[in-house]
Every structure is written in structure tokens, then in C-alpha cells.
């Protein structure tokens, strides 16, 4: 493999990995806050893409207006989901809550399918255009936007968690719910915001993907990749989730190049299993210390 090809593959891997990273982020944020794995997170991307489609085609909104509006609607959906589905049964066994979110995913996907069926829709974005040649490597602008968007989301989140009062409150809740409550933090509103934030990030992933792969009800399939990425990252840290996503993208792309598509999905798993046997809490995770 020449270095030109290796570079081209690295670019592809990072682009795909950025999408995985966004989904992983959206899984980790509510998990950290309320300890629930949202199995409908893939469908949040589907929902984002279709809301965007409806806003762009039915109301003729320009891309730059449509995107923030879509994220807002998605965030509202996240709030609803937390209030109506997760909170009422948060005391039930973990599995019950996870399967409840899974049911929400089933509902979203089948509702979308009833409304739009399986037609492949396209969503035009102003940045879609001819590839940029950088030496021997061709960079598709749509992919550059994905990478840039992912990096900015992570940057903004880091600033938010480090510098704002509410961000700090969210971190406090993640560390110890009871202590946070005693400090006067509104745990309920933190949960709600975490779900809103995650839903918006999921929708963003759908919107970024739409101009590249088109819109179908099956976009939600992404959840499995996001899950793998989040687990590599340790499922507790935002940086870990992003690193996990990018790593998964690169691993898959190079595995595909070296071993073909059959093993493309397996090689990352084998590597991960090996990693996990050596480090059972993920690459960037830490073991929780338990007092017995």
C-alpha cells in the first residue's frame, strides 16, 4: 500500500468515524447523566434527517435556517422522551428502560416508513460540490464538513461542561446524583437537558449524513456502530467517545482495504475483544471502585 492510498483511506476513515463519534457522544451524554442507554439514538438520526427533509421541501427553508430549527425540534423530542418514557420507569430494572427506548425507536422508524415509505430522498446542502485535491488525496467537501462539525461539537461541549454553571451541574450529577441534589442542583432539569442535547446531536448526525448517503428509514442502523465506538471509548468520557468513533472508522476502513468487506466488520470486533480482555473497561474508561 502506497502512502497516497494510505492517506486517502485515513481521510475516509476519519469521515466515517466522525459520524460514529457523533452517535457515540449522543449515547454517552444521557448515559452519564441518568445511567440509561438510549437504544432509540439511531432513530434520532433518522428523525433529524426526515424533519430536515420536511422543513426543506414542505416549507422551502434554506439549509442554514433548517439545520438549527431541526436541532431544536429534535431537542424538544428528547425532552418529551425523557419526561414521558424514561422518568416514569427510571426505578424499574435497567433492561426495562433500555427496551422502552428500543420501543420508541421501533415507533419512530415505523412511523417514518408509513409516512414516506422506502423512497430514497436526497437533501441538498450548499457545501456539496467537487472534491478538493490536496496532493494525491481527494477531499470531498461534505466529508470535511462532517469532520469539522464533529470537532466543533466536541469543542463546544468541552467549553460548556468546563465553564458554564449548568455544565458543571451536569458533571456533578454524573458523578453523584444524591450529592448533587443535596447541593441544590435540579437533577430533573439536568436529566432533561442531557436528553435534549443527545437528541440534537443525534439529529445533527442524520442531517450531516443526508447529503452524502440520502435519506431512508434505515439510517438508524448507525446505533450499533455508535455503541461500539462508545464502548471503545470507555462509555464515560466525551473525549473517549470521539476517539472511539474515529478509531472505529479508521479500523474499519483499513480492515476493509486489507481483508475485504467480509472481515471489515469483524476485524474491529476482534481487535476490540483483545483490547477488552487486556483492559476490561475500554481504552479510556476507568474501573469504578466499589465498596462492598
Amino acid at each position, binding site marked *: 500500500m502506497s502512502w497516497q492510498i494510505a492517506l486517502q483511506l485515513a481521510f475516509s476513515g476519519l469521515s466515517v468515524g466522525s459520524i460514529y463519534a457523533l452517535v457515540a457522544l449522543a449515547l454517552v451524554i444521557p448515559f452519564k447523566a441518568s445511567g440509561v442507554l438510549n437504544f432509540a439514538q439511531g432513530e434520532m438520526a433518522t428523525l433529524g434527517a426526515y424533519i430536515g427533509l420536511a422543513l426543506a421541501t414542505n416549507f422551502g427553508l434554506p439549509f442554514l435556517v433548517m439545520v438549527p430549527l431541526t436541532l431544536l425540534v429534535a431537542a424538544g423530542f428528547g425532552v418529551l422522551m425523557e419526561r414521558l418514557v424514561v422518568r416514569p420507569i427510571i426505578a424499574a430494572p435497567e433492561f426495562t428502560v433500555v427496551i422502552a427506548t428500543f420501543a420508541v425507536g421501533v415507533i419512530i422508524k415505523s412511523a417514518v416508513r408509513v*409516512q414516506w415509505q422506502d423512497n430514497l430522498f436526497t437533501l441538498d446542502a450548499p457545501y456539496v460540490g467537487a472534491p478538493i485535491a490536496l496532493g494525491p488525496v481527494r477531499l470531498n467537501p461534505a466529508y470535511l464538513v462532517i469532520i469539522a462539525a464533529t470537532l466543533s461539537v466536541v469543542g463546544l461541549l468541552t467549553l460548556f461542561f468546563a465553564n458554564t454553571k449548568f455544565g458543571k451541574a451536569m458533571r456533578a450529577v454524573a458523578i453523584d446524583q444524591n450529592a448533587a441534589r443535596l447541593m441544590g442542583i435540579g437533577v430533573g432539569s439536568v436529566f432533561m437537558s442531557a436528553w435534549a442535547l443527545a437528541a440534537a446531536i443525534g439529529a445533527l448526525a442524520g442531517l450531516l449524513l443526508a447529503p452524502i*448517503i*440520502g435519506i431512508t428509514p434505515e439510517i438508524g442502523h448507525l446505533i450499533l456502530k455508535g455503541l461500539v465506538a462508545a464502548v471503545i471509548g470507555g462509555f464515560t468520557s466525551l473525549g473517549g467517545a470521539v476517539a472511539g468513533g474515529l478509531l472505529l472508522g479508521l479500523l474499519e476502513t483499513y480492515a476493509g*482495504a486489507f481483508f475485504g*468487506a467480509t472481515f471489515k466488520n469483524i476485524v474491529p470486533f476482534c481487535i476490540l475483544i483483545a483490547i477488552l480482555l487486556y483492559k476490561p473497561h475500554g481504552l479510556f474508561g476507568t474501573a469504578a471502585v466499589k465498596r462492598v
Partner: protein
Amino acid sequence: MLGRKPIILMALAALGLSLTAARAEQGVTNDTITIGAFGPITGPAAYIGLGGRDGMNLAVKQINAAGGINGRKLQIAFEDDTHSPTRALAAVKKLIDQDQVFALFCVAGSNATVGTIDFVKEKGRVMYVSFASAPPVTWPFSRNLFRGGTTEVPRYGEMYAEFVADYFKGKKVAIMNGREEYPKNEGNALEKYLQSWFSITPVKRAEFNIGDKDFTPQLLEIRSAAPDVIAFFGNPAEAAIALRQAKELDVKARIFVGTTMVDQNFLAAAKENAEGVAGFALTPLLPGSPHADMKAWEAKWKAEYPNLPVGRPNIFDILAYTDMYAFAEGLKRAGKDLTTDKLIGALETFAGYRSGPLATPLTFTKKHHIGNLRLQPMQVKGGQWEQLSWEGKRPSEILKRYE
């Protein structure tokens, strides 16, 4: 006084008579014929079954409005199979056992169809298969099973190979396909007949997975083999990405695509990258075609289903519509005294029968029930699929094994 034996014999004969009578008349009354139909209308393959169901129902409505079949109206009992063989078998058992249908009309995918075959044979019902291309539908031969508008996978291979070698003059062919059942079978069939008919061994065979969003590794591999033709089998969304990336990565070759991509979806997704791409259509005319026959048909379809989303009617609407007409023709030819045997006999009189301008010609004989051996070659010109006048010259070898 009668001995014991004659009484038993008579009883047996009566029982036999009542059984055969019951068998012959299941699903047929003085004024209705009930047909059971099944296909996926939920889940990722819903576009197949929804198209199949709606196209079929449109035909049934028109046939009934025109007086039905020898004085009887057609009734359809439709069941969802969710694209799963297990659920398909449940659907077929329900249709035959509970709804007591006379025959089955299948608008399901290949594996779901194959999963029901043993039961259908055991019950001696006729099943008319509209879409499934898997060989077990027609081979080994079974009197009860018929395949309509589509043809079987090895025939795809023959036509694809001849087209690639003859029309595209391909010498170095690369094959890229998804790992699901349909595209993989298309890829395998093309490879097989390129080798056996033209002694062309593909220079590269690259596969991808459902949900892949990036084809750079596969395309770089293909680029290094410098093919003159790339054959792509997958779905329109995947093809659109692959074509765009191929252009970005300077992969220069003529592109041949599988039947699933010869439709409007592909044009909408691939846009200018679709230009010059060729492939075969399952029907002589495609949805969205400016041809007058298609315009007229689409107007009728839209009058029946005014609220369905873009993308419909799709190719499956057309296949099921034309196949239901062909099947109804068989029922008509079977005569007023309708039995399964007579229906089979009637369908076997089809020799190049076409129910209308949208239909492919169907032939059934006492030796084979393949139906159609023809696909329509198409190429994208000026952003539209256009019929090519190219015709395959090599006689098909598919029918040999039925001799």
C-alpha cells in the same frame, strides 16, 4: 345382501370423492374466487410488498370492474411476511388453512418464498410467484409453482455476461456487490457466465456490507486492477455513493448495474454521475418513463392511490399488476368449472403471452414454469433511463435442464 368389503369400498370412494371435491372447490364459490397473497409490507423490505400489494389490488379492481372471471369476482386475502421465511410460512398456513384460498399469489422476496414452497406443494395449491428470482421456485420442477414477470438468477447471469462482453466490450471486468442475498446472487451469476461463456475471469471482486457509507477501500482496490467495466450490485443509495466516489478517485470504467438500480430512485440519488450507466430493467417500461403507455398507466394508478409518497408506483407495482393480469388470464382460460388442475393446464397454454404493454412475455409449458426469460436493457442518457435496442444473441441454457 352386501358383503362387508363393498361397503367399505363405497365408504372409501365417498370419502375420496368428498375430499377431492373439497380440494377442488376450496376458495371458489358461485360468484367469487379467493386468492391468497403475501409479501413484506413492514420492515426494511416493505417497498417490495407494498408495491406488490397495491399493484396487484389495482389489477384486481379493474378485472372485477370489467366483469370478473367467468362470472366470478376475484377476492384477495393479503398477509404480511416481514421478509422473514418464518413469518411467510405462518402467512401461507393462515391463507391456505384458515382463509381457505384457492391459490396463492406471491409478492415476497426470495428467501421468504422459498421457505413456503414445501408447504404449498404438500397442500397441492397453485402458487404464482411474481418477484422471487431464487432457482428453487422453478427448479426442481413442480407443477404447482409458476414464476411470472421476473426471471431466475442464472438467467440474469447469462444476460449480464453477454451484455458486458458484447455491448460494453468488457475484457477486464470488476464486480462490486453487497453481501445480502439478492446483490450477491447477481454478482455470482455474472461471474459464473462471464467465465463459462466468454472465458473472462473478473479482475477484481469487491464486496460491501449493508449500511456501508464509504467505498474507498473497495474502489482503490478496483482502481489498482484497472478494469474497463465495473459491475455494481446493491441498492440505489449505495450505488450513488460508489459512483460519486469512483469519480472522485479517478476510477475510469464503464458502469453496469443490477436490476434494483434501474429505476428513478437511482437517478435521483446519483444525479449527473448516473450518465452512461447501463443495466437491465425487469419490465419493458419503467415508472416515470415519458412513454405514453406508462403515462396512461401511472394516471390510473394515481387515481386509485392519490395519497402515497413519492417513489411510488415502483417497479414492483408494475410487476404485480401485470402478473395479476396474467394470472387472471390463466383463471379465465381454466373455464367456469375451476379446479387446480385446470388452472395449471390453462397457465401451461401461455406461449409468449403479454397482458399489456407493460408486461414481459410469459411462457409456461408442461416441462418448465419459468415464465419470462427476457430483461430489458437500458442506459442512462440525458438523465433518463432509455431502452437500448441491443438484444442478446446467445440462446439461453437455462431450459436445458428441464428437457
